[in-house]
């Protein structure tokens, strides 16, 4: 409210009485047009690089970067796309990455939401200590433990298996924190009623909290899915068999080995990005609505 009090008198006040006259209309139209142009500017900036990738996927290998520059391909050649879609290694890495991402997401939702519930609603010894420990892990950058966690997974005989991709990152303090924030805001009256009904704590978690968790679950789930789908350094260190190649690993290897086949690289990148874009478009409403929780509140 203090802001209103300090507002200086508007200098444009003199024009205010005119607002209802026809003169206002072209101005409103102008403002609308400006907004539309500004909006288009942002949309183009955001989507152009992706469009460029898709277009380049239709170019032959010498067309992608060539002089004189050419925006569109001479012939819209679908060969790159069909060829890469016919590559069994590419398809398999798409499949394996998708499988891993789904498992990772499910695991992440399960372990993180359980912990979130315990930290939000249950009283137990060492709660504070454990909470501090869990939250501290949030601030350990991956680079610090890159080598030592590699040694750990080697000792556990997990190298070159799906487990090495799925297990290490699934427990994440940031997700526990986020889901817990949501659970803290669930009215106590709800669960007290359930407790009186004889539900028990598990029942409360399963019947009351989980069904209400769609919003945080969509955010945590999609984030987990994307994290898995987009990870690069960990897979190249831990996965050796081409049968388990992750999609980013495949693309990076393609880039370093067949550096002259840019058209196909672009087609592959576009196809590798397509699934996440689809997942996002399916859940976009929930994600966008829930972003504010992911942020501050």
């Amino acid at each position, binding site marked *: 409210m203090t802001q209103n009090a300090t507002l200086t008198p508007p200098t444009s006040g003199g024009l205010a009485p005119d607002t209802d006259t026809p003169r206002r209309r072209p101005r409103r139209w102008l403002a609308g047009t400006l907004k539309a142009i500004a909006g288009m500017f942002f949309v183009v900036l955001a989507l152009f690089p992706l469009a460029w990738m898709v277009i380049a996927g239709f170019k032959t290998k*010498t067309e992608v970067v*060539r*002089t*004189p520059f050419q925006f569109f391909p001479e012939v819209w050649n679908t060969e790159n796309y069909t060829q890469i879609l016919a590559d069994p290694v590419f398809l398999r890495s798409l499949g394996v990455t998708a499988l891993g991402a789904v*498992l990772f997401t*499910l*695991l992440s939702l*399960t372990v993180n939401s359980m912990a979130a519930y315990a930290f939000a609603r249950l009283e137990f010894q060492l709660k504070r200590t454990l909470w501090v420990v869990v939250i501290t892990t949030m601030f350990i950058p991956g680079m610090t433990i890159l*080598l030592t966690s*590699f*040694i750990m997974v*080697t*000792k556990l*005989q*997990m*190298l*070159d*298996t*799906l*487990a090495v991709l*799925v*297990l290490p990152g699934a427990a994440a303090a940031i997700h526990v924190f986020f889901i817990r924030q949501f659970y803290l805001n669930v009215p106590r009256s709800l669960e007290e009623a359930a407790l009186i009904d004889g539900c028990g704590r598990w029942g409360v978690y*399963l*019947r009351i909290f*989980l*069904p209400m968790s769609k919003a945080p679950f969509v955010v945590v789930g999609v984030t987990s899915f994307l994290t898995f789908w987009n990870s690069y*350094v960990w897979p*190249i*260190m831990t996965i*050796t*068999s*081409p*049968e388990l190649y992750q999609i980013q*690993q495949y693309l*990076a*290897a393609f*880039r*370093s*080995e067949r*550096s*002259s086949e840019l058209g196909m690289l672009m087609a592959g990148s576009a196809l590798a990005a397509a699934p996440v874009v689809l997942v996002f478009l399916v859940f976009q409403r929930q994600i966008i609505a829930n972003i504010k929780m992911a942020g501050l509140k």
Partner: protein
Amino acid sequence: MTTTTRRRLGAGTALLASVALLAACGSGTPGQSADEDAEAGDREVVEFWHHTFTTPENEWYEQVVEDFNASQDEIFVNSTVVPGDAWDEKMTAAQAAGTAPDVYPVPGRLNDGVRLGSYLALDDLMPAEAFEQVTDSAAEISQVDGTWYGYPLLLEPQRVLYWNKDIFAEAGLDPETPPTSWDELYEACEQIQPVLSDGQFCIETFSDQDTLAWSTVAEQMHVAGHLPISEDWTTAEATDPAYEELIEHYTTLYDEGYIPRQSLAAGNSAAPFGEGEVAMITQGSWGMSELVADYPEVVESTGVAPTVTSDGNQTETLTTVGNFKWVIDANTENAEATAAFIEFALAGDTDVLLPFFVNTQFTKAPAREDVAEAVNADPGAAEAPWAQVITEDVVPYTIGEPLYPWDVNVAMGLAIQQSMMGDVAPADALAEANATIEQIIEREDLPTNREELGD
């Protein structure tokens, strides 16, 4: 609410199932798929990692492993291809965890690895006859202080000049006479530039820091007669004015726009030449096999020559030689079996190695005398005109890669690049390089390392 619960239970079951699945995937030796497990049976398994190279090289690697596995039933070599972008981090991590492969190819010098105890000595694992045919220059890079730590596969000059005869003719230059000295190069470029279209350049040399670091070593030697560190590794010698001239050479190429200001492709690829983006390119001899494989249409008009030197003298320190030798990891549990594989692949029948050199279009020099003879006798050798240039005009005038730590190369590469692209005067850039090298000498106690190396 009950349906939701059921759905949750469903998810829970799926999760349990997936955990079981993970556990199932979790058996098996790292780096080995189920098929290979079955194939190996109860044979002793030797893990072999190698890089991806050009197509004919990759085919040879695959073939030699297959042949070895078929040749006996005691040992099974499990071959794993590690892409270039992943090699360093994968190898470091594997070494740290004690799971490095039993055998793998190593480029560059072995002395650092030997000092750290990374490789097994081969002398006791392979019969003395196995080393008899190795050429002197290949022996030099495979031994440390008289002990064999690697078995050499090949040698390849890291710098030769490729020129496009069509563009030369169009520019009014003699299509059969490539430039030999810096001055001739400048003249040629001046004449070539008018006929180039936008986005085409006179020449692509190595221009990124890391590539400059290794690719200019022979040039450093050529212009100054010594390397930027004294023989006994006690003092840095980077401030020689001759190095300033070398830097000015690169600055000229850069300022005149003879070279592109940003590498057109990865440091070891001849693709820009193949795609007609440059009239000349300085590249390793492997560039020719790349051109033959990927750009057959330009082979006809491609000439191969010794690299341009400061003074046009092409019979001295033309280039360093790249090489690959295979080493056995010091932590291996299958030393004997691994050595048997190396013996089969590299030290045995010349027929095993012949396809490697023939299929790479005679662009690499064999590391064994008998293999070299067999390769030269191959009818294909006569049809590869560049083969003779490489073996006769380049290979005899090469020097080995330096033994000192890589950081020293980087310091020089940085000095060249700083001066070429920035506003740093050559002398200042070299002074900085000199200081860096002094630091390295102290930090890594180089004089002692040098003494331990022997001669």
